[in-house]
């Protein structure tokens, strides 16, 4: 029996296009690199510290949870690294180490593994963690406090907070080209608008994220901000300001597109993206928080299963 030739009998198809979770994760890490590098350039070693700690902690938590839940070790698929990366990107460079450790623990346990791991999470794990930090440790996420001791050659006040407090007059102090080139305070990986756009475009062209969601989210932001701006040009900043300031672009290309918390059909994708975009502006302009991206996307994560019920009629179905 030992020397008998045995054939393998697996089911069709016998071809595969070669894509894997690992490849997708690594390309996501690569796409985020320009934005992260700019953050490290602007904020220096503290930013590098946050990123390194966040990614390594996330991987470690994944390993610990794999072991604790007696599951195969899934560190190699890179998903934990992506969660760590996204969480780190959203944090200011001065975040204390224990917030990073705690945040990644929340992301991996409450965000991912209590639902069963990769693909089972109803909410974006990185956003669950950042929302926890925003609610629990208000000072940590306050950009004006975070960058108090830094010297920048651009206005060092949180642009969204300034606009919320002083209206469009404050927006005039900032330059949109500066935002594009990473001249604003914010999370480590959220300030370089151009880099995020390049990374996002790369992911879209490679087919690794769904362009419908990113595009409709941006359109939602622009339209809602434009309407607000039109209604009261002195109070509400214009659409381009909202597009380039805060978490908008990292949200559009890296957060809202997370697979398992977003819909897959065409109409739901557009509704989901546009809805989250409008909600972001609503929170920014009339809500209690400075930046609405986190809670707007989390809210629409919850709406995802309902939205995805809108689907095309399958071949040969009459009803």
């Amino acid at each position, binding site marked *: 029996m030992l020397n*008998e*030739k*045995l*054939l*393998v*009998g*697996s*089911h*069709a*198809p*016998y*071809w*595969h*296009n*070669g*894509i*894997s*979770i690992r490849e*997708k994760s690594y390309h996501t890490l690569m796409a985020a690199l320009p934005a992260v590098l700019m953050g490290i350039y602007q904020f220096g070693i503290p930013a590098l510290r946050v990123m390194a700690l966040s990614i390594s902690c996330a991987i470690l938590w994944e390993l610990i949870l794999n072991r604790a839940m007696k599951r195969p070790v899934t560190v190699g698929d890179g998903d934990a690294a992506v969660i760590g990366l996204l969480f780190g990107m959203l944090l200011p460079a001065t975040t204390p180490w224990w917030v990073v450790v705690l945040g990644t623990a929340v992301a991996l346990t409450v965000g991912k593994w209590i639902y*069963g*791991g*990769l*693909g*089972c999470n109803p909410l974006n794990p990185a956003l669950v963690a950042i929302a926890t930090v925003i609610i629990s440790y208000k000072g940590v996420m306050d950009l004006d406090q975070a960058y108090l001791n830094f010297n920048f050659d651009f206005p060092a006040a949180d642009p969204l907070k300034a606009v919320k407090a002083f209206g469009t007059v404050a927006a005039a102090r900032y330059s949109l080209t500066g935002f594009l080139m990473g001249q604003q305070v914010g999370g480590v990986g959220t300030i370089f608008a151009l880099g995020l756009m390049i990374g996002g475009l790369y992911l*879209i*062209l*490679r*087919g690794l994220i*769904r*362009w419908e969601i990113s595009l409709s989210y941006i359109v939602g932001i622009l339209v809602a901000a434009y309407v607000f701006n039109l209604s009261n040009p002195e109070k509400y900043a214009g659409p381009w300001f909202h597009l380039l300031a805060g978490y908008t672009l990292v949200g559009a290309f890296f957060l809202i597109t997370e*697979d*398992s*918390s*977003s*819909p*897959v*059909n065409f109409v739901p994708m557009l509704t989901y993206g546009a809805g989250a975009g409008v909600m972001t502006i609503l929170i920014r302009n009339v809500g209690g928080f400075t930046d609405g991206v986190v809670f707007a996307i989390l809210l629409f994560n919850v709406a995802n299963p309902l939205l*995805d019920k809108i*689907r*095309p*009629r*399958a*071949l*040969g*179905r*009459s009803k």
Partner: protein
Amino acid sequence: MIKRPFFAITKPKLRCSRIWTLPKETLVEIPLPRKVTLLVKGPFPRVGELMIRVGDRVRTGQKIRLTADRGDYFIASVTGTVSDVSPHTGYMGAGFTSISINADDQDQWDEAFGPLAQEPGLQTVMDYLASLPGASDFGSLLSSKPALETLVVLGTDGDLLVTKNQFVVDTEAEALAQGIETLKRISGIPKIVLLLPDYFKTEAVKTGVEVKRVAPLYPNTLPRMIMKNLFGKPVSAGKRCEDLGTGFVSAEAVVALQKAFSQAQVPIHKLMTVVRKEGTTVHARARIGTPVKDVLSALEVATHHGDQVVVGGAMTGRPLFSEDAPVDGDTDAILVQDKTQRIPSSDSHCVNCGECVRACPAKMPVNLLIRYLENGHFEEAAEDFDLLSCIECGLCTYVCIVRIPIFQYIMLGKQENARIKSAEEAHA
């Protein structure tokens, strides 16, 4: 394997193999095997009812009935002695009777069909040609209810890598044209359409028959897609194309039918595309019932422990568990894959990436369907998540990022649904 392109914003484009791009190879005739195994579809008869026994002598082309009262029969493809009669279970639990015959060196042709071939008629077809190479259920196709209004002769090959039908159209154009005429005359089907790939030269086939063309992009070459795209008649979920009055038959079967009448011999050879491990293609012709290992050894294709041998194309083929399995009337291709080329499936969860939904030509909610199938909710899958709309193309599995064997789950779901339905009918 075709790699995902660098820019992959749209759904996958898989071109079917074109015969023109293949190197000009002659047809390889596989030598007469020492033993053939013939499979007859249907439940295994009770032993006492069997009309064929071990030790019986059979002649080439002889029609042999399985039982006295059942209509099913088979045509012996060699002259020799019956060495085994046993039940056999095929794909999706289909029952067969397997008859093995030890072949003599010389063929002795049976005389019964010769005189009947002078007058081609439907009764002769039903009596001798109900199972043709390339259409093992030809008889039931012609007698299907409701009567067929359209018969599509496939000059295209459904699956990727297979070029057998294109080869037939290319090399047997004249016999094909005559075959279509014969078929029209004896079957009485009002409309016969020849389907060709759009790049095929028109002068290759000179028939009076209506020719339709299809872009050889997978899965447009599958019958249900042809129904939707070419005829504008999408097949309802759970129904067959025949229920809408349209049948499909391969060009190979039509040529076999024509040759049966012109040469006064029942066809006993099967043409197939053989794809070697390195991807090169060759066409081979073997006696029906030849073991696959004889075909492979005649073509000098070596297989090793852990390799995969597939009957059919890359997307919809079926695995062989043993190389002793025979070539039957539906063995359109044999695909050999090295163990390093295999794509192992995984038991990971669906990550909801949506690639399957984008790729699905039937617009099924594959991402939701797979969750129900994985957990054994087959009836909900059929009722609420369009399981029965599946055209069985395999594209969902081809693009799956976590490599779930979706196609296998779908076929399991269909089989379980059929089983539940038949059990309910039996107890009604």
